[in-house]
């Protein structure tokens, strides 16, 4: 039994690590197609990671251990988050740890390390990026928690496994509260993953950057790990969304037989979400920085509305 759980867990971790750059490549390719460009191909993120991993990293003399350790910490945090989400199967070794509040904590830890490392060197851009990242983070986190609490209220537990189990069991039922939560979740996903309209992942203008400003001083394998973790984070966010709002196809049984089908369904969900994300990014311009609080305030409001609808009317 334990061996089965271990196998499932290992496959999921490898899947998350290996597929994340492909998802990033797919989104870029969709964006390219949507703006009449041919694009660099699906495998471009892998080539970039490979290039960065081979390069010798340059680290500033003033850098402390924190600066060097942060890429590993962030990468590990994202892998842990990816490992405990029941996006393929609810029977995982780490399933017991898959708590909604704990999950938000894992993301926060990664963010705090990234912000501290950016300020470690004392450069203007690092501090600026850290400041802006914390601004976005402290507004996005409550909204994320509120989103997670709606399904938690429906299933009576903050454990993701119980939530997915409960929601999938009900079959196709449209909960109005979950529609509000889903809308809020899309907005939080955009903000947390530094996507348009909150941040522009393609910008080369250091003064407008939020997430990119944190990474300006990283190079070589450190930069590769940071980029890779960003890709994993996006996959994990979409995975959480798929588990909460489209839980169908996630295997519950003890055997390994259902796994290929579950993986195929997840790939389809990721591809669809990636296309949707590319469409949103193509259609929107970047928000003025001080409009970001309004954007995330709206997300929070929608999430609270979802919670209220569930709480007051039981829908």
């Amino acid at each position, binding site marked *: 039994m334990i061996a089965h759980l271990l196998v499932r867990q290992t496959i999921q971790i490898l899947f998350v690590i290996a597929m994340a750059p492909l998802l990033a490549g797919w989104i870029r390719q969709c964006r390219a197609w949507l*703006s009449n460009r041919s694009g660099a191909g699906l495998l471009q993120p892998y080539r970039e990671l490979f290039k960065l991993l081979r390069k010798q990293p340059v680290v500033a003399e003033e850098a402390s251990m924190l600066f060097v350790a942060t890429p590993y910490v962030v990468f590990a945090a994202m892998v842990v988050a990816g490992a405990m989400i029941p996006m393929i199967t609810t029977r995982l070794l780490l399933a017991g740890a898959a708590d909604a509040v704990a999950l938000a904590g894992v993301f926060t830890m990664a963010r705090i390390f990234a912000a501290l490392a950016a300020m470690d060197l004392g450069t*203007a851009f690092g501090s*600026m990026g850290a400041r802006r990242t914390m601004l976005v983070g402290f507004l996005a986190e409550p909204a994320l928690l509120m989103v997670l609490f709606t399904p938690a209220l429906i299933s009576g537990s903050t454990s993701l496994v119980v939530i997915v189990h409960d929601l999938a069991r009900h079959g196709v039922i449209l909960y109005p509260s979950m529609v509000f939560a889903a809308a809020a979740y899309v907005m939080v996903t955009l903000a947390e993953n530094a996507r348009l*309209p909150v941040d522009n992942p393609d910008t080369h203008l250091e*003064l*407008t950057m939020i997430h990119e400003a944190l990474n300006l001083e990283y190079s070589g394998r450190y930069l590769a790990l940071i980029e890779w973790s960003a890709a994993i984070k996006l996959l994990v966010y979409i995975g959480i969304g798929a588990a909460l709002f489209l839980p169908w196809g996630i295997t519950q049984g003890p055997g390994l037989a259902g796994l290929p089908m579950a993986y195929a369904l997840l790939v389809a969900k990721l591809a669809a979400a990636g296309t949707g994300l590319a469409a949103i990014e193509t259609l*929107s*311009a*970047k928000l*003025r920085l001080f409009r970001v609080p309004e954007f995330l305030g709206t997300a929070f409001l929608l999430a609270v509305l979802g919670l209220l609808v569930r709480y007051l009317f039981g829908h």
Partner: protein
Amino acid sequence: MSFVHPNDGFPMTRGPAVGWARLPGPLPVDHAWVDDASWRALCEQWHAQDGRLITLWGSDERPAGLGFVVHAVFTYADAWHWISLATPGDRPRFSALSDLFPEAARLERALFDLLGISCDARDKRPWLRHEAWGPADFPLRRDFTQAAPVPKEADPYPFVRVQGAGVHEIAVGPVHAGTIEPGHFRFSVVGDEILRLEERLGYTHKGIAKRLEGMGLTDAGRLVGRVCADSTAAYAGAYALAVEAVSACAVPPRGVWLRALLWERERIANHLGDLGALCQDGGLAFGHTQFGLLKERYLQTQARLFGHRYLMDTIVPGGVACDIDSAAISDMERECTALLEATRRLRHIIDDHAGLQERFLGAGRLDRTRARALGAVGLAARASGIHSDLRLLWPSPPYDSLKARICLQEQGDVAARVAVRFDEIEESARLIRVILAEIPQGPVRAPCAPPKGTLGLGAVEGWRGPIVVAITRTPECARHHVHIHDPSWQNWPLLEHAVLLDLVPDFPLINKSFNLAYSGHDQ
């Protein structure tokens, strides 16, 4: 759109009695030698009566026994006025203009860096000099012989400090995260709000004026056309006009019309590129791709018809080095139709895009009063409601018969500068169609005789604003000096004012909406 002369209602007097001489060329340029007293009196009078400073520079005329000479060009009333002040002696000084014309401040600092001519302005910091030469070396003096930069210790360059709770500085550049030209921007901010911006430029100073002194006037056009590649046609055109003025060369009508065609094409190509870049900085990658496509097609047409994507070396003293046949005319006609259709559709998309308009509207606002006080010129001035366009104010052939229309906006924000660019694409396309329909037949180039005159001035409304080239010759000792002025000298300081109280992350967008020259400014 009506045209109001800026001097309506002012008494037209010329001030102190000095001997004005009209220079040859299509522009009405009057030149006079002045002394200290009349230098100051004329500047004060022109300042009081809404004259505009076009450029300020110096030349080393010691071989001719005049010492160092300070030159300034103004437009005032119905003529361009070029005044020259000889400052004999080893420690040349003149009376500063920057208290009257703030746009002169950096020109005065550059004048000291290059020639050691000092003035009574307060700001004594270097402007073009970094570490390539020392504080006691003056590269534009004729006896300066250092061939290559000798790295010197960097002098301290004190930026103005802003004091207060929570105020800190952000230093950006000259090396940026992207592949862009070098400029240093020192922001004083509270949080993300800009309290003050101070620019530092001069990183791309290449000593072009010094190099031009050693070249023959008729051969130097290629170099002048490479000072600032995005305005190569305007630079080469202004230089050709100045050379033609000193060599009394008459350009055949077809050559004159072809030049206007090239200038308008250059304007359209740059506006297309800028609109794409503005969309990209606003986060709308779609607009960037579409305008990039339009610009690329446009440049390919230029490579096919004129032999160079950016029109380099097409305008030469005496005329133009290219000609168009009937196939090229119908080619460009079709191109105009397709381009206008595409840009109009894109304009609808951009105007209706709430997110992008949110970024554009109100960002980087420069009101008319401030723009006027700072001496704004060209596109940036027109976006703030100022009538500034050589093609209308001083129409030389063929613009006198083309009747160009001015494209004005009042708001002075990023949206206004976007709108002026769209309007100017329309207007330039209209002008191109008129040129294609009415271009006279005949030769395109006349031989240019060796220069005989001593002074020549040429000016062209480039896409940023007026590009001015002034040539001073000393025939007795076969020497000349070429001064090239980019409108960015006037417009870089505007940016410092336009960004006040905007947000730091909006700066790249505001900067792009001006899109000023580094190379053209630093030279």
